[in-house]
């Protein structure tokens, strides 16, 4: 330091040190601000994923949007904020795909493909193993194929969003086709993947009804947990067809037809 002062003068060395200190301060400020943004983003993402675990879709999207605001280049934050039912999500995904690091682009591309299928489109086939297998399976289902077993490669598992979506579509397809074994299998998948889904109690009732080893009493007590209403009645009517051996439990619970009794003639 003394040599520097002797060579350049104390004033010049002081100014140089001040400049260096200023630059270091700016760098520290930028690092601090980035750390703050990252911290806030991770907190919001945590809240979004906690909401997703309880299947609170509105809270998930709200916290996801906040996380995406803090972490624009983080695919997990961007994806959780996406509402697949919204056609405008296509532009959100396209922007996200440009922002995220190259190695994370396949994650966004898979959600983009899912969005296309959801809106009746036909995505290309350029995804990684597990994701591509799910997308191909969903495409077949969209074309009216029966919900056969979903075959996945041993390595490279699919993303949760794709698996959860596929489980719901598979169950719906099996329900519409009316094949007992397919309904039982897909109800089981849905129960394991999404036990907090709002309709999971109904899915469990279907699973119990179609499992021969389950006693009528256990099935009956589960049915009583389901909230009364049109949705329950529709499930019961369908189960009468699918599982006639449960009619002793189902018949007393089915909606009665005809005019309400007036009590006249008693």
């Amino acid at each position, binding site marked *: 330091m003394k040599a520097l002062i002797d060579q350049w003068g104390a004033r010049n060395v002081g100014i140089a040190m001040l400049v260096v200190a200023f630059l270091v301060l700016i760098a520290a400020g930028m690092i601090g601000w980035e750390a703050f943004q990252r911290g806030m983003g991770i907190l919001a*993402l945590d809240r979004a994923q*906690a909401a997703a*675990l309880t299947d609170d879709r509105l809270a998930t999207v709200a916290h996801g949007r906040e996380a995406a605001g803090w972490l624009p280049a983080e695919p997990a934050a961007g994806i959780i904020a996406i509402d697949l039912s919204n056609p405008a999500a296509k532009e959100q995904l396209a922007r996200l795909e440009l922002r995220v690091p190259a190695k994370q682009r396949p994650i966004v591309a898979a959600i983009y493909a899912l969005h296309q299928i959801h809106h009746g489109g036909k995505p290309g086939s350029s995804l990684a193993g597990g994701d591509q297998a799910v997308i191909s399976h969903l495409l077949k289902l969209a074309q009216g194929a029966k919900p056969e077993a979903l075959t996945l490669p041993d390595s490279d*598992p699919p993303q949760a969003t794709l698996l959860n979506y596929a489980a719901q579509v598979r169950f719906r397809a099996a329900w519409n086709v009316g094949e007992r074994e397919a309904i039982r299998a897909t109800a089981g998948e849905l129960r394991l993947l*999404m036990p907090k889904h709002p309709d999971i109690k109904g899915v469990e009732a279907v699973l119990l009804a179609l499992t021969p080893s389950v006693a009528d009493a256990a099935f009956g007590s589960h049915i009583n947990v389901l909230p009364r209403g049109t949705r329950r009645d529709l499930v019961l009517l369908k189960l009468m067809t699918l599982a006639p051996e449960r009619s002793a439990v189902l018949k007393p619970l089915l909606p009665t037809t005809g005019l309400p009794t007036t009590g006249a003639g008693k």
Partner: protein
Amino acid sequence: MYAILVAAFYGVVLAMKALSRVQVPSGYSDVENLAEYTSYRLDQTVAFTAWKPGDAVCWRLGPDADRAVNFGWVAALPGDRVQVRDGHLEVNGQRNAKGDVILLPDCGPIRVPDRHLFVINHRHQGDSLAVGPLPASAIRGRMGSLP
């Protein structure tokens, strides 16, 4: 001078690791006998790819105090096949010895999604049978052992 700074830095890191404990909520009953302990050492430095089946794990299901601490074991890793057979969990066709009997009819198999763990505890409260496979962000850390 630099040696002292480096030593101080490592000292702080080691102290943080040693002091990193998770408080067991009062009345916690999802893992047998765990409530006898007041807190557990928690290693939060475990990389996601380093998890193994059977590891004792702590996870959170939300920011509220009663959902922030859950304990159990890793039953399955991403890509593993999980199913329920005869009241027990099977992973890749092998029966998992942990946890009480599962009150579900036979169901599955499913594949554990990417960046997710399938965790299980004694009473299946707040574990993957109750909330589904857990994302990496829900995992708080690894414990040495659980009763």
